[in-house]
């Protein structure tokens, strides 16, 4: 599904990432873990086109998308959520999800200004679809609430609903459990499994090891901008290099 080949990123003289190479298998939940400063978020930003890699390639289903802007990657089915939640704060919850349906509708400046008949029916379809996604995330009752006033946990659910509205092939989640309490984290784990069951491949950066070990099929471990290990959760738990990186040497 997604393949990263020899990814490197330098910010001025600082090497943030070097020689990152792994694949995310279709239909899996892949976890990317590593200590703080390992380069996980940088890797996500490269994968989603927030900035380009200094070297290496990002391949989505065999297509080199390294130089594509984020909006083009979104149309190809690559969508992400953010660590600090990037909602459209002054819009309602429903409107946020309706923006998520942007790629599945096409009315432009003229059709919208002149309220063409096809634009009206498209608008109805967008609204119905958006309501379905709110239901999927279990936040239907919040539809008319301004998104900026949501709690962190509900905001996270909205961000996921909005991302799912694009009907992505691959959903990248940057620390989805950050800021959530244990009950919310458990609900999140269920939601992520339901997302995978709908045929969406998931890759997530996460610090919550219980969550990662529970839901992930494969793990990639980063440390100081390089690949430390790759394997199933069980293999990673027993990997000496990983234990050293997390706990320090004895």
């Amino acid at each position: 599904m997604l393949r990263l080949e020899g990814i490197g990123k330098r910010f001025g003289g600082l090497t943030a990432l070097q020689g990152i190479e792994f694949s995310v298998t279709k239909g899996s939940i892949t976890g990317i873990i590593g200590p703080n400063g390992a380069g996980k978020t940088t890797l996500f930003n490269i994968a989603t086109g927030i900035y380009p890699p200094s070297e290496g390639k990002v391949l989505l289903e065999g297509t080199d998308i390294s130089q594509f802007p984020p909006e083009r990657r979104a149309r190809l089915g690559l969508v992400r959520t953010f660590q600090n939640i990037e909602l459209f704060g002054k819009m309602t919850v429903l409107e946020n999800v309706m923006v998520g349906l942007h790629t599945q509708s096409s009315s432009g400046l003229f059709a919208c200004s002149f309220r063409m008949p096809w634009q009206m029916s498209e608008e109805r379809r967008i609204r119905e679809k958006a309501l379905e996604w709110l239901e999927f995330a279990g936040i239907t009752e919040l539809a008319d609430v301004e998104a900026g006033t949501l709690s962190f946990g509900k905001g996270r659910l909205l961000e996921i609903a909005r991302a799912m509205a694009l009907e992505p092939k691959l959903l990248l989640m940057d620390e989805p459990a950050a800021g959530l309490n244990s009950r919310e984290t458990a609900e999140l784990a269920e939601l992520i499994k339901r997302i995978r069951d709908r045929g969406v491949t998931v890759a997530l950066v996460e610090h919550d090891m219980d969550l990662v070990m529970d839901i992930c099929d494969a793990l990639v471990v980063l440390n100081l901008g390089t690949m430390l290990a790759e394997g199933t959760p069980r293999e990673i738990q027993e990997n000496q290099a990983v234990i050293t990186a997390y706990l320090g040497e004895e």
Partner: protein
Amino acid sequence: MKSDKLKFLIFCLVVLVLPLPLAKGYLTNVLIFVGINSMLALGLNLLLGYAGQISLGQAAFFGLGAYGSGVLTTKYALDPWLSMVLVALVVAGFAFAIGFPVLRLKGHYLAMATLGVGVIAHIAFNETIDLTGGPSGLSGIPNLSIAGFSFDSDLKNYYLVWSFALVVILLCLNLVNSRYGRGLRAIHDSEVAARVMGVNARLMKVQIFTLSAFISAIAGSLYCHVMTFISPTSFGFNISVELLTMVVIGGLGSVYGSILGALLLTLLPELLRTFQDYDIVVYGLLLVCMTIYLPGGMVRGIPALVRRLVPARSGNA
């Protein structure tokens, strides 16, 4: 949806009957300028209030529209309607071309770049004396007319300008309550999230900048035919600031807010004749006070104020 239509119909009705009690009074003349300023403020509001992109050069597009129509009809004897369409298209094309480099900038840099466009245009109006008449202005611009019916009185011009303004208002209302309008507001709230959602932010910003220039150019053409005389002072930096003040005072991101802002700021100079030379100071003060005390503008601030006062009263009783 239903109530939106009703609101617009009521507004149309108000516009229709408003000049009747005023007859040929001087206020009808002022209301013509409220109509023109409403179009200009709306154009800027699409850009600033919805897409979140500032422009301090709106007077340039207004001026290009006015001078374009003025020059084509006086020096080249072109049909006023034809020249209005031609000029609006050329100005929109110009905005589209400069939009790509200019709108890559953000915040203060965008403000400076658009300010530059405004200043350059103003200098051009002053210096191309052969075409524009320079500082002494361009006179003898014909009134608009349809099949022999000439718009030569204030009342006729009022209905002419406001029919244009109402069409612009209706189109803007449609636009902001649509997929496209949601995209613009998404860019305003978080450009990076909007792009990740597949919104082509760069293109949409340029498109809305172009539309705002198009509307401003039409307003400029109307202005020159209503006035029959134009001079560079009507298209200077202070006009751009005045438009900005209208949008902020009325309410960013509110279509009717822009009209309210245009109404207030067009009437204000009439009320504050004594400040004439210091008008820009008054606008500055208004801007500062509004952003501090009523950041949502009049359309949101006043209802909020009323809500705060009304329960307090019932509590006393």
